[in-house]
């Protein structure tokens, strides 16, 4: 068994018992990247030297018999929209192609403090806008289970890297499904925490009221470990909650007995593929077999989810992305006649089509005369959605739905029609609007052996219950994800 195939928990055991060093583990994963990344295309930049330096530090600590943190010495990857001091942070955009931050995002600072070797920055949809990683300015990332297909998005690089064993785990960000959907498509575990549980400081903003950083991991136990590292109050983020944070790993027991699970019928109806529907129904049965109480239920205004989501997300994005104006940093057009021309050309050339589409939409819905009809209305819908979730989650410990209507699609299949692409998020966006946590857990495959995930939705700060339910399911042996077969194109990197 190659070291790179192991989970973080398994690696930690090896490190603790001195059966493998962090340098060995890190080199193994780097070797894997060298082997497969020419095919998969997860990484936008690599920081192997500093990762190995960190690995050495950890090995020295182990040699001195010092206690090491649960994730110390275990190499991982960071989505390229989280600022890394001195290392390019591009958001997969031409606009920030050469942007080098002068500070670390709060999560990156936490990783560094915990002696985590960071392998590099991974691909994504441009400014996290997309569901397939196809809007990246730089390159395609391929689904390791079928390289003709997209890995999902926007955290496609993060999910593909973990799936292909190019990283033991990764950080992604989720605004409307950007962690859960690629995790589902790649057959890995992805958690979008409660809004305000992980600091957004240093996460390049797409839609500030919806964005949340979270882990993408090989299994549920690793997910809990990453949460232990990244969750917590941060004074630099006004929307960060100042509460007592639980130890997410401590209460991880494989027990779903007595859990009350609601299944909103609106998520199981039209638009959901036969295969996904069949797998989810079996998952529901499995939970019942494990002693959970499952009931069908209903959530209000589901028809308005996408509209409300895209209005709010685009409105915030139009303002958040206004700072990329060619004045202070980032891309600037070569020829311009005056200030307005500089702005126009810089932004026309620096942003891709999807980003421009959303900026224009967002600008429109905030314009005077339209604000009440769109933005204000969307905020009212948001309140109803929040209340709806809150009512349901008063009745149930968690809700269960599919993550996506279908499995990973082929490149180009949905890029011509934005609405079709937006429908990819139909099961995930409402969770961001409600601000509650949700996890995507691998639960089966379709006829073509492509991964399918189940989404579990928890109460505000309900991550421990969510992780417990996911862990119980994973440990039940109902479904064991298979490693993808990837052809090595050694040395081509």
């Amino acid at each position, binding site marked *: 068994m190659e070291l790179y195939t192991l989970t973080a928990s398994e690696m930690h055991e090896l490190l603790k018992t001195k059966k493998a060093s962090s340098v060995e583990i890190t080199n193994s994963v780097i070797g894997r990247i060298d082997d497969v990344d020419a095919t998969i295309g997860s990484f936008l930049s690599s920081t192997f030297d500093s990762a190995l330096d960190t690995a050495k530090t950890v090995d020295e600590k182990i040699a001195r018999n010092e206690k090491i943190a649960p994730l110390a010495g275990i190499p991982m990857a960071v989505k390229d929209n989280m*600022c890394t001091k001195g290392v390019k942070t591009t958001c997969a955009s031409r606009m920030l192609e050469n942007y080098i931050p002068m500070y670390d995002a709060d999560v990156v600072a936490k990783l560094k403090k915990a002696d985590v070797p960071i392998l590099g920055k991974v691909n994504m949809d441009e400014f996290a806008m997309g569901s397939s990683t196809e809007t990246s300015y730089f390159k395609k990332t391929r689904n390791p289970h079928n390289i003709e297909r997209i890995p999902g998005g926007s955290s496609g690089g993060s999910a593909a890297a973990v799936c292909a064993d190019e990283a033991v785990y990764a950080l992604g960000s989720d605004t409307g499904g950007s962690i859960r959907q690629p995790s589902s498509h790649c057959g890995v575990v992805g958690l979008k925490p409660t809004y305000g549980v992980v600091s957004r400081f240093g996460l390049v903003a797409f839609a500030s009221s919806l964005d949340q950083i979270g882990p993408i991991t090989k299994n549920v136990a690793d997910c809990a470990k990453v949460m232990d590292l990244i969750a917590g109050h941060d004074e630099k*983020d006004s*929307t960060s909650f100042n509460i007592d944070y639980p130890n997410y790993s401590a209460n991880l027991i494989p027990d779903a007995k007595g859990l009350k699970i609601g299944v909103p019928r609106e998520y199981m109806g039209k638009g959901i593929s036969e295969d996904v529907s069949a797998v989810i129904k079996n998952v529901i049965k499995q939970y019942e077999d494990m002693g959970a109480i499952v009931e069908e239920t209903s959530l209000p205004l589901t028809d308005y989810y996408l509209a409300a989501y895209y209005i709010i997300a685009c409105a915030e994005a139009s303002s958040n992305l206004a700072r990329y*104006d060619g004045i*202070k940093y980032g891309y600037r057009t070569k020829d311009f006649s005056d200030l307005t021309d500089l702005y126009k050309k810089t932004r026309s050339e620096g942003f891709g089509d999807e980003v421009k589409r959303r900026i224009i939409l967002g*600008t429109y819905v905030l314009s005077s005369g339209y604000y009440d009809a769109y933005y204000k209305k969307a905020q009212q819908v948001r309140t109803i959605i929040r209340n709806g979730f809150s009512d349901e989650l008063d009745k149930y410990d968690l809700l269960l739905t599919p993550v996506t209507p279908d499995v990973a699609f082929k490149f180009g299949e949905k890029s011509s029609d934005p609405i079709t692409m937006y429908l990819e998020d139909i099961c995930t966006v409402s969770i961001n609007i409600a601000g509650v946590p949700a996890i995507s857990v691998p639960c089966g495959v379709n006829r073509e052996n492509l991964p399918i995930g189940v989404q579990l939705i928890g109460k505000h700060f309900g991550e421990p219950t969510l992780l417990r339910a996911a862990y119980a399911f994973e440990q039940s042996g109902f479904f064991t994800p298979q490693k993808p077969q990837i052809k090595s194109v050694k040395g081509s990197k």
Partner: protein
Amino acid sequence: MMDYETIIGLEVHAELSTKTKIYCNCTTEFGGEVNTHTCPICTGQPGVLPVLNKKVVDYAIKVGLATDCSITPLGKQDRKNYFYPDLPKAYQISQFDLPICTNGKVEIEVDGLKKDIGLTRIHIEEDAGKLLHEAVDGTLVDYNRGGVPLIEIVSEPDLRSEEETREFLNQLKAILEYLEVSDCKMQEGSLRCDVNVSVRPKGQKELGTRTEMKNVNSFSAACRAIKYEAARQIEALEDGEVISQETRRWDDDKGKSFTMRSKEDSHDYRYFPDPDLVAISIDEQWIKRIHDELPELPRAKVERYIKIYNLSDYDAGQVAGNKAMADMLDEAVKLGASAKFTCNWLLGDISKILNDKNMEASEIPFTARHIADMISLIDKKTISNTAGKKVIDELFDSPRSVEQIVKEKGLAQISDEAALLSVVDEVLKNNEKSIADYKKGKTNALGFLVGQAMRLSKGKGNPQMFNDMIKRKLDSL
């Protein structure tokens, strides 16, 4: 020509003197090497988040309480979106519909008439950076000022003249100075205002169309701008034209305003609540804490000066209108000086010197102790009034103890009759004509002779004694 009435409303921006900026920990200090008072947050780097400096809310509440405003229990912060290179995020965090303070007033008094000028609102926001056009190659930008906290004070259209406007601005400035929330230095741009002007025929109820003038950099410029703009509008109306609602730029050098943009071209700022910030909840306790910190305010001071210090209405208003002067007066009185004398010195010689040197009262290089000491020496007749003026001159040049100045410059007054007698004899010997005049009934000849005696004694003789001695001699001749 019809009789017109001018309607004026102001938007005053005051930079707050908090130690750090509104959303980051950079210093707010004025000056400093270009772009050194900056960080990732105030330069709008990708991924940064603002955290509100609570002191800014404290200061806004303070100004609100001092101007009889209602304080909102729930405030929020909104983004005002527009592109300009001095605005690093391409939006300014400001307040749209829930400002910290609403519905206040400032009392003014012009020609003995008291009047309340309404305040619509006071809100908090961040300042922008500064463009440097004098750069050799193109335009550069300095973000040192970016993120410095501001309050915007918006008045009702209650002002009717330049005099009222000037008085309102003076009162407002005094309040801000008393509260110690702003430096109020016009030349450093810490106090700026936009002026809204409209005119209407006297007696008409509806307001005329207003224009807004930007770039007004001093109180006197505000008055000039109002005078010009009102005249321009009246002339246009008389010519049968229609006033268009627009933003105009005031050019103080040319003494004219110019169209900047019409209403159609006005920005759509696309205000919306800033999702990076949380609501500001202000409870009774917070308001009470600020209330308890409020100092005595200008209006209360004026009343006290009139009642307790027996100053005239005018003098009381003048001194109280300037915090540095008022502080000096109160301090000097505490040290035993007469309020009336101190006030005379402050509004007389000291104000004159400040004026000549183009200095603010807050820049006076000496203390109330110096004034009190000087007045005490005059009271004791150790020095004359004239010598007192010299002491003040010296204090402005290089502050040191009054006693030392009197000693160094030999300003002590001679009150020894024997010593003065020789001077008196000398004067009388040399001014026979004046003696004759006096004898003829020209009493002002006495004053001339005393003056001669003072000159001969190099200003050191006690003038009252000279007066008495010379008069006695003349009457006995």
